[in-house]
């Protein structure tokens, strides 16, 4: 019990705060903050997915924007075909668009997962510096692909006419949408907690800490890294599907490399390889951005040095502040 409180205490408290926030915000007249809070939850979901490969697998993916944006575009394109363009004819089949989240969300997950399979299969042939640059490059490739597709808005992006419908939930209701985000985040954090303690998680941590030794023990490491990468990409795609619904607008900006960078920052800021780290990190970074934006239009002039200071002096992130550990991350 004490162990449970120590490991989950702060994370659960923050989760509880998010659960109660809508009521509190309503009482304080801060309803506008619900959008920011939902954005935090969605980014926490994506950063949590990144944390699986980064924190547990030691794979510095600088291309997770590709999966985030892919998930967002799947939702938007399906809705666009549903509302505007009409069905697509492929090989004589008329495939209609849809605004049904029961179809669009799983498809977003599937497409992002498949994309992660292809990008992962190519990038995981390398490691270290090469891996960072290659994941970045492939994500940019997807970015330029969407910039060059005028049918889907090109550089300007696509607007959704409404949020997806997730019968019986009405996602156009901000409160319902908020709790959907919170619920999915809680569900996937719980799933991740299981996975990282199970054999798969140990295999990943073994690869992170000493891949050569894992190979010598008989583990075909490539397929485990690839599996983690695909899982991570798929969940990031789900986060993308949610962000498209939150903003009711998608553009190549979701696919751009600063998004990959922000997700990395969230993981580090929160504490790499910590279960609740991404939630802390997303909360901290987005609140910080929000506060700095209120303060000055040149907020990035402050954010940049803050990031540098965090890297140089606060290793272990926010989760590490509570329980300092001698060992750095790897």
């Amino acid at each position, binding site marked *: 019990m004490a162990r449970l409180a120590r490991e989950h205490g702060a994370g659960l408290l923050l989760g509880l705060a998010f659960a109660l926030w809508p009521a509190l915000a309503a009482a304080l007249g801060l309803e506008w903050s619900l959008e920011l809070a939902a954005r935090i939850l969605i980014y926490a979901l994506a950063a949590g997915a990144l944390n699986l490969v980064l924190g547990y697998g030691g794979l510095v993916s600088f291309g997770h924007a590709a999966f985030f944006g892919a998930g967002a575009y799947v939702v938007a394109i399906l809705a666009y075909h549903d509302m505007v363009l009409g069905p697509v004819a492929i090989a004589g089949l008329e495939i209609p668009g849809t605004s049904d989240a029961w179809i669009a969300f799983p498809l977003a997950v599937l497409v992002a997962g498949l994309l992660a399979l292809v990008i992962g299969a190519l990038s995981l042939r390398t490691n270290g510096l090469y891996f960072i640059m290659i994941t970045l490059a492939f994500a940019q490739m997807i970015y330029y692909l969407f910039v060059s597709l005028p049918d889907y808005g090109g550089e300007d992006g696509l607007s959704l006419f409404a949020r997806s419908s997730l019968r019986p939930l009405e996602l156009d209701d901000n409160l319902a949408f908020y709790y959907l985000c919170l619920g999915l985040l809680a569900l996937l954090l719980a799933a991740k907690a*299981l*996975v990282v*303690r*199970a*054999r*798969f*998680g*140990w*295999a990943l*941590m*073994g690869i992170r*800490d*000493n891949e*050569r*030794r*894992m*190979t*010598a*023990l*008989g*583990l*075909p*490491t490539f397929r*485990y890294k690839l*599996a983690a990468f695909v899982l991570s990409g798929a969940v990031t795609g789900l986060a993308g599907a949610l962000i498209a619904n939150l903003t009711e607008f998608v553009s190549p900006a979701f696919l751009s490399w600063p998004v990959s960078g922000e997700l990395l920052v969230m993981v580090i800021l929160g504490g790499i390889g910590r279960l609740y780290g991404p939630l802390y990190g997303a909360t901290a970074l987005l609140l910080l951005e929000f506060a700095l934006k209120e303060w000055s239009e040149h907020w990035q002039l402050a954010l940049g040095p803050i990031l540098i200071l965090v890297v140089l002096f606060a290793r272990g992130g926010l989760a590490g502040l509570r329980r300092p550990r001698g*060992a750095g991350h790897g």
Partner: protein
Amino acid sequence: MAEPLLSAEGLTKAYGGVRACAEVELALAPGELRAVIGPNGAGKTTLTGLLAGELRPDAGRIRFAGREIQGLDAAARARAGIGRSYQITSLFPRFTALENARLAVQVASGHSFGFRRAAARDRRLAARAEALLGEVGLEARAAVPVGDLAHGEQRQLEIALALAGRPRLLLLDEPTAGMAPEESRAMVALLQRLRGGVTILLVEHDMDAVFALADRITVLVGGRVLATDRPDAIRANAEVQAAYLGQDGGDGAETAPC
């Protein structure tokens, strides 16, 4: 003689223009403890790497347990029954001794795609991991993080990991490297217990250990096999003495077998 468990023919590996291993021939009988000695730069570590599958040979064939294995990667060779330890301790430093052993047992079990059940609660994994620690004499240190183990204990754990897959062949790269005399003796005793049960290829600089343990000794010099023979014959071999004494500098000269 029975068919060798491991045999290498014409094993060659070059770096740039330098041949670290040149047409090495090797045949280990089942149950044999073979020591490989040689001055620094003789190609001993390269040979272990080639046999373990971490390095690709430029030429040559390797047979293990009746089949050609030069096409298999390191992981596949481990699963085929070749365990190895490293000259520089290669463990999972953030985890405890027991967790290290359990991870090795998990990999050896061939099933790491488990997503639900906590590995720490898996009794079968834990039982085998504890037994492994017992085999190398670390049962009392199970809960200690690897970083806090003494160097000698880390070397023992290194052997435990190599044993996790119940290998038929152990490749041990200088298991006594960096050890105090006390620790060295414990390691020799451990290898004495293991010998016979498993075929061992032992790369070693500590000549006391080599002559105490080896059934036969292969001497590598400049990437080539200079001699393979019983310990007393190697000790008497003039060529071996010349090769060792002729080397300047290397620690091989200090620990020459004469």
